[in-house]
């Protein structure tokens, strides 16, 4: 990149600097000028089939597609002339002659490029008097995708994604002209690990997600920036929630990726996208003693029993940097031993997925917490069962979801999942990434920080949980670790 020549171009009267050969649509976007597009996607090779992105260049007789034209020194470009607006309106009118316009039952409505551009550039009644072309509206493409040929505008983003990003090439364009549709090559189904991204890149509602289909309208959803917990990459995500419906216990409706070029680019894997169910179902909502519901008072009694005994904390690789630092502080004060537990390693791939299925093993490593087995009298276990618990006599658990063998624990304290608290994780690259609170903790669950404070106070230690303070302390450790 850096050996490419810096050039100056003018877009809509604004002088901008870019590299020679950058596509005009990209150069403009980087400078804050948005050129409408349907087929162009930053991540994919340009195809130039939708003709939405035309711009005028001084010296050229006809408008050109900005997604195919590289910038050259001194170009003077206009993106907002009346002729261009008329051109866009005509393109839209043409697309809409074959479009079913079933926005009321289309899951994309509200975040649909076609809808948005129609309101921006077209906004007139259709002049089409013929019958609309009828096409299949419910084609199952694979485990989670439904294709609606009638809504498809043949922008080929999906085809290019499967060619260029996953390399699995399940889809192609069949037939011609008004009859064309996107179809699976013989014997294929879309079962790759990144299929959910097709729903995101499809600019219209032609690909819908079976998991989200008809669950909600998009404008009812609250969007909270967060981090995916399912592997050490820490993909940037958005959690879409709705807690306003008193007749539904579902709180999380879907997970969407957030663009971060250094970590996950534009994508997330299907595991991260579809595994949000644990946030709402099978949760431990109250303190439990030997598998039965109990009160916070008896939790306090039980905790008092560990005074003066040897204790081992099994902190987990799903806890935030701040919580780990805080619990380390507690352990240091009482002279307790520390080890790490987490999910076992799984499969990784070349795109995003990593074999380490924990979001914060790196954070624990920076703090010097290792996986070891102990034989102290008391074990305090977070989230995951260590290899062997038999040697510990008193077992205290801090868990989010119900699991096999809960009755073996003297006390289980209900913990908040990542979506119910704020904090940060350190991904495999050593990047500290924040996640925000999307929901209130379920039932009586508390965050691990609050549980730490509860435990410390019960044991007569005045050590407050202050997220900012422990963030700073963690960052000190991080600087030391980075050298």
């Amino acid at each position, binding site marked *: 990149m850096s050996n490419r020549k810096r050039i100056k171009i003018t877009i809509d009267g604004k002088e901008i600097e870019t590299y020679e050969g950058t596509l005009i649509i990209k150069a403009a976007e980087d400078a804050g000028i948005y050129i409408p597009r349907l087929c162009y996607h930053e991540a994919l090779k340009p195809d130039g089939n939708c003709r939405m992105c035309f711009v005028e260049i001084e010296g050229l007789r006809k408008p050109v597609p900005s997604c195919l034209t590289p910038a050259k020194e001194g170009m003077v470009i206009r993106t907002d002339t009346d002729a261009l607006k008329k051109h866009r309106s005509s393109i839209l009118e043409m697309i809409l002659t074959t479009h079913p316009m079933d926005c*009321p*039952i289309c899951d994309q409505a509200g975040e649909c490029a076609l809808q948005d551009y129609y309101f921006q550039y077209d906004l007139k009644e259709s002049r089409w008097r013929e019958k609309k072309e009828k096409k299949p509206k*419910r084609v199952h493409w694979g485990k989670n995708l439904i294709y609606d040929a009638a809504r498809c505008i043949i922008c080929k983003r999906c085809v290019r994604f499967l060619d260029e990003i996953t390399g699995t090439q399940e889809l192609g364009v069949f037939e011609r002209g008004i009859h064309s549709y996107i179809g699976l090559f013989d014997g294929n189904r879309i079962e790759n690990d990144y299929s959910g991204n097709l729903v995101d890149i499809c600019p219209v509602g032609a690909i819908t997600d079976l998991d989200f289909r008809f669950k909600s*309208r998009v404008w009812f959803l609250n969007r909270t920036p967060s981090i995916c917990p399912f592997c050490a990459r820490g993909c940037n995500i958005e959690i879409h929630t709705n807690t306003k419906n008193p007749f*539904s216990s579902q709180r999380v409706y879907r997970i969407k990726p957030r663009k971060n070029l250094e970590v996950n680019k534009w994508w997330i894997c299907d595991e991260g996208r579809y595994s949000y169910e644990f946030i709402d179902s099978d949760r431990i909502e109250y303190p439990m003693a030997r598998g039965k519901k109990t009160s916070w008072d008896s939790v306090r009694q039980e905790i008092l029993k560990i005074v003066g005994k040897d204790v081992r904390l099994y902190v987990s690789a799903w806890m935030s940097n701040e919580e780990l630092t805080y619990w380390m502080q507690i352990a240091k004060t009482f002279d307790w031993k520390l080890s790490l537990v987490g999910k076992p390693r799984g499969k990784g791939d070349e795109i995003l997925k990593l074999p380490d299925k924990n979001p914060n093993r790196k954070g624990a490593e920076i703090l010097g917490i290792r996986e070891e087995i102990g034989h102290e009298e008391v074990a305090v276990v977070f989230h995951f069962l260590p290899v062997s618990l038999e040697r510990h006599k008193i077992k205290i658990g801090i868990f989010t979801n119900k699991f096999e063998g809960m009755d073996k624990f003297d006390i289980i304290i209900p913990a908040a999942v990542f979506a119910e608290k704020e904090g940060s994780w350190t991904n495999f690259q050593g990047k500290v990434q924040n996640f925000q609170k999307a929901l209130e903790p379920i039932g009586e669950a508390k965050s691990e920080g609050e549980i730490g404070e509860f435990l410390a106070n019960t044991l007569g230690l005045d050590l407050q949980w202050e997220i900012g303070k422990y963030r700073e302390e963690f960052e000190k450790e991080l600087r030391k670790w980075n050298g």
Partner: protein
Amino acid sequence: MRLFIEAVKGLGVTMKHFFLNMFYHILRFFHLSHKKGETVTTQYPEEKRETFTRVRLRHRLLSRDDGRLRCVACYMCATACPAQCIYIEAEEDPRNPLEKKPKQFIINLGRCAYCGFCVEACPEDALRMDVHVPEISEYKKEDLLYDIDKLTHW
């Protein structure tokens, strides 16, 4: 003294209305007159007052000729509703050509403001409101949650 005069004047107005209304009541009792405009108690429920045609009352969900609900669970009514009292759960309609139908459709009439926005918003003309039936009363608050069953039977 002035206060006393004003009080007597006030009493005069009261007495005037009292006797006038009483007179009309008696006429009415003997079916001699049904003149409107006087303050006459309507003997509900034996007798019902006419409602204006612009009044919007109980909601109804309409059906198509084949018995299916017209509603396609598009949530437009729920979106338009200022009281946020419409709760819809949608599901796949396996019969073509409609793709979507409501599995659950609840209007909380205890919260409804009877503004009629939901009727205006509906693209399918699936939701309408009664005009002349003012009886929307229940013994329990929960019974004011009208579901598909209650909204389609009247």
